[in-house]
Structures are given as C-alpha cells and as structure tokens.
C-alpha cells in the first residue's frame, strides 16, 4: 500500500495572552513534534484523553489551522503553505466527519441540499446533477425518499450522523478525519454508523484518521493506532500488537480502562493519579513522568526519544 499522507515534525502552539495582572500568559503546545503517515485505504486510530491535542492535530492536517513548524504532504505534495484559491484542489481530497451531528449541518438547509453542496462547491457537478447524485448517495447511507426534504432538526441523531457522513464522502475524498464521530451516539446506533463507515471504506478506498478516546471503537475500525499524550505521540503500532502487547505505561493504563462485559472477570485496573498536566507548562523530561508508576529520576530529567522495537512498533519511553 502506498503512502497517502505524511505529517513530519508538526508543531502547533497557541499564544495565550496574559490576564490583567500580567499573569497566565505564555505558549500552549497543543501539538508538539508529531510525525506519522497514513497509507491509502488505511484506517489509523488516534487515541488519547480529552485535551491531549488530538482534535487540534486533525484540524492541522485539514488545513483549518496553520502549522507553526513541520510539514504535511498529501499524495506527495506539501500542503502546509498553500493558501487561498490554490487550496481548493487540496480541500477536495480531504474531509472531516464531525463529532456533533447537530451543529455540523446548516439548520436552514434540507439534508438533500447539504449533501449536494460539496459537489457544487468543488465544481464537480452542476446543480441538477449534484442533487441527483445526492439522492442516490442518501439512499446508499440508508436515508429514504421521505427524509430528503427534511431539515436536520427533524432527524434523529443517528440519521443526522449519516447525513454528515454522506456530506463528507460524496465528493470522494482520499483522506477523511473522523473526529469522535460516534461518541455523541448511543450504543445501538454507534454500531450502525461504524458499519456504514467500514462499508464506505471498502467501496471507495478512502483513508480514515479516526480520532477517539474510546479504545473499543478504534479497535473495530482501525488497523494501526497512535496513542497521544499531551501533544506527543507516545506509542504507534498495529492494532493486534497494541491490544496484546502495549508497551508504554500510559497505553497500558488506557487499555485497562476498557470495560469487559463479564462479572466474574477479575481485572486489574491501572489507575493513574492526577490529571493531564498543564500544557502551558509541560513537565521537563518525559511528559508522562508525573503520573507514571514506573518513573525514575532519568524520566523526570531527560525526554525519551521515540524508538522502534520492531515491526513498526515505536514507543517513547526510557524503560523499554
């Protein structure tokens, strides 16, 4: 499989203005030196707890945010400095599936219009043809004729998310960022939507970057998984390897938090003390050290480098 997207040393910081007392200002490192790649027709999972920078990374990849440093290459073309009209061909190749299906659709547009809009905006088809195509695409994602002229607020959460997916996928993008697409849905709908996304991938060969904090969802869809902590990727490996041999202490703790539907199962949960450190003042050395049960003086002083331990499994820890 060939490479579709490559992010190299991506850095995104935000400047926080000091308050009236002159305190609280500084630089917030949302994404700090992140490198990874996505192959064609591959699903990559990006997991981590709230506030670790996974959504920001997604927005950077889609050029909704400008990078501070680093580069992003889509199909071999560097896109981090493209702007204005030249960005349109790039936009055509990438899309985003939103977390909240309610606010992702313009409340004044019927769902048919919302789904047809990308084809017109990208100049792929004229108005009549794009409406025609939107109709058949809506049927494909499971929304029948009676729903086409409805407004978003008239649909259920699951139906709305299907519309959001249809809107993202109708222009046949090569790369789609899914920003927690099922976390606003209840469990029964979740499976339907995930199956739809899987079917779309098989039919169109799209690549997903699947952002989630829910490891069981990621496991279902993704073949390779990145674990993010405080703006850095700390472990990257295949799905099988991650779930059978997690190496980083943080990944181990994350995996132990997945509920197992068996009352007799005696599981050991790894409870992490404390919360995600303040990203304005990240700890020196290993960023996970303050919460890590195995941390030593080395961890607190020196930042561990990312190391390959075989089969494309990279870990960022001193003790591996």
């Amino acid at each position: 499989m060939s490479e579709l997207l490559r992010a190299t040393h991506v850095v995104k910081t935000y400047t926080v203005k000091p308050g009236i007392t002159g305190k609280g200002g500084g630089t917030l490192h949302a994404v700090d030196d992140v490198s990874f790649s996505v192959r064609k027709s591959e699903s990559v999972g990006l997991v981590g707890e709230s506030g670790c920078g996974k959504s920001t990374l997604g927005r950077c990849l889609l050029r909704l945010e400008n990078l501070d440093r680093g580069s992003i290459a889509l199909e071999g073309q560097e896109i981090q400095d493209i702007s204005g009209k030249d960005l349109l061909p790039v936009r055509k190749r990438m899309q985003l599936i939103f977390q909240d299906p309610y606010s992702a659709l313009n409340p004044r547009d019927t769902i048919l219009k919302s789904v047809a809009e990308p084809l017109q905006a990208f100049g792929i088809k004229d108005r009549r043809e794009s409406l025609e195509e939107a109709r058949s695409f809506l049927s494909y994602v499971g929304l029948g004729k009676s729903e086409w002229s409805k407004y978003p607020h008239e649909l259920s959460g699951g139906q709305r998310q299907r519309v959001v997916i249809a809107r993202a996928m109708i222009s046949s993008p090569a790369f789609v960022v899914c920003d927690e697409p099922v976390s606003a849905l209840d469990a029964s709908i979740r499976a339907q939507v995930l199956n739809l996304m899987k079917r779309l991938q098989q039919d169109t060969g799209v690549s997903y970057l699947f952002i989630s904090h829910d490891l069981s969802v990621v496991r279902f869809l993704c073949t390779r998984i990145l674990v993010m902590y405080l703006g850095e990727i700390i472990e990257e490996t295949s799905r099988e390897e991650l779930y059978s041999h997690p190496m980083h202490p943080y990944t181990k703790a994350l995996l132990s938090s997945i509920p197992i539907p068996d009352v007799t199962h005696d599981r050991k949960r790894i409870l992490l003390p404390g919360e995600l450190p303040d990203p304005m003042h990240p700890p020196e050395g290993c960023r996970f050290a303050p919460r890590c049960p195995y941390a030593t003086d080395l961890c607190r002083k020196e930042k561990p480098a990312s190391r390959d331990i075989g089969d494309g499994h990279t870990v960022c820890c001193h003790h591996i």
Partner: protein
Amino acid sequence: MRKGFLRRFMHHVPALVSVIVLLLMVLALFLLPVILHLDPYTTDMLAMNKSPRPGHILGTDATGRNILARLCEGGKISLYIGVGSALISMLIGIPLGLIAGGTKGFWSSLIMRISDMFLSFPAMILVLVSVAMFGSSVSGIMLILGILGWPAPARLLSANVMSEREKSYVMSAKLLGRSNTYILFHCILPNAISPLWTSLAFRISQSMILESGLSFLGAGVQPPLASWGNMMQSATSLVVLTTRPWQWLPAGLCLIVSVICINFVGEGIRDALDPRLKLN
C-alpha cells in the same frame, strides 16, 4: 421555507389577531377621514370642548377641532415615525452588528464600546436634547429616534453571529473551500438574523412610545400637527382629565392597542422563523 413561514405564523393566534387588528386600524386611519369628510385642522368655533355628538362622533378639542379627524391624522404620523425610525435603526444596526460579530479586534470592540455609550444614556433625555438642538419636525424626530435606536439590533446581531460562527457547519463550509465572505453572508447571516425581525417590531412599538412621550412633553410633534402623544397632552390639565375623557382617552387607547399588537406580531414572526421550534 416561505410557505412554511406563513403556515407557522397562522398557528400563532395572538399574532394573527394582532395582524388583523393592525390592518383594520391602518385602513381606518386612511379611509375614515375620506369617507366622513373629516379635516384635522378645521376649527368649529361653535363647538369647543364638546362631548361626542352627531357631526363630531368623538367630540371636539379646546379649539373645536374634530377629535376623530385628529386621531386618524395623529395615528398616521405616529405610525410613520415608529416604522421609519425602526427601519433607520436596522439600516445602521445590521451592518455594524455584522462587522462587530464577524470580525475580531479593533473594529469589533470599537463598535461595541460606542453602543455601550449610546445605551448608557437615558433615552428620553437624549432625545429631548437632540430635539432641542436639531428641531422637532416629523422627519427630524424620526431620524433622531432611528439613530438612537441602532445599538439594540447591532448587539443582538453581533451576539448571534458570534455564537453561530463557532458552530461546526461553519467549519464544514470552510472545508468546502468557501470564502469567509460567502460563509458570513450565506451561512451565518441567515441563521443569525431571524431574532432581528422581532427586534424590528419591538423597535417600532418602542419608537411610538418614545414619540408619544416626547409629544406629550411638548418637545415632539408640534401642534397644529396631530400625534397621539400631543393629543394626550391635554390631559395635563386637571379639568380635562376629570371632565373631558373624550379628548385624551381615544389616543391613549389607540397607542396601547397598536403597541401591544405590534409586539404580538413580533413574537409571532420570531416563532415562525425559527425552524427548530416545533408546531404542536
């Protein structure tokens, strides 16, 4: 959408009744003087301060002018000032509100601070001073009330634009390569503007009240021109207030009824425009 709007509006009973009342009222203001051959400026020297009687259905005022004729004339002027000044407020407020809500930084905060200044003055005093400075012609009053009324729609619109532009569908439009101007006018504005129609109705009624207050105090529409406000001025005299209710009661009632009706219509428009509100 249009069809849906009408249907939704029809379901709002108070608004529907109000529209009918307002239409009848406007019709009466324009047709009654023609049908009954009434003139608001003719004085009947033989019938001063007369109670309602044939020929003077609502009686006469202190100079023998027909109250019904003056009621119609005053209503026209009051409505004209109310609607005109509300439109002027919108005309100034909408562009400024869009700028304040759609941009960040200097212009946005400048507009908001100026609107703070406007709002921090008591409206009546400001209007009194402005009228004293610029004269009290009907169009002058309309202009002054209009200019003083811009902060309300501007703030409402800018707040709505600010909350709408953070929503995901705006990001979604950006991902389709839409320009910021396109997004502002095609995605954000239609979603942010509907409360303004309500605000327009409230501006109309508020301006009418302000105008009446002003005329009542003698600084607004000047006699011999009639307005509902200066007709009520006669009630400042205790004798008129207690013994000649026909001279001030009709104007007051008309003002109350029209203001209430306009407010109901505004409410009906608001409910009908919001696609998220469900009909029951």
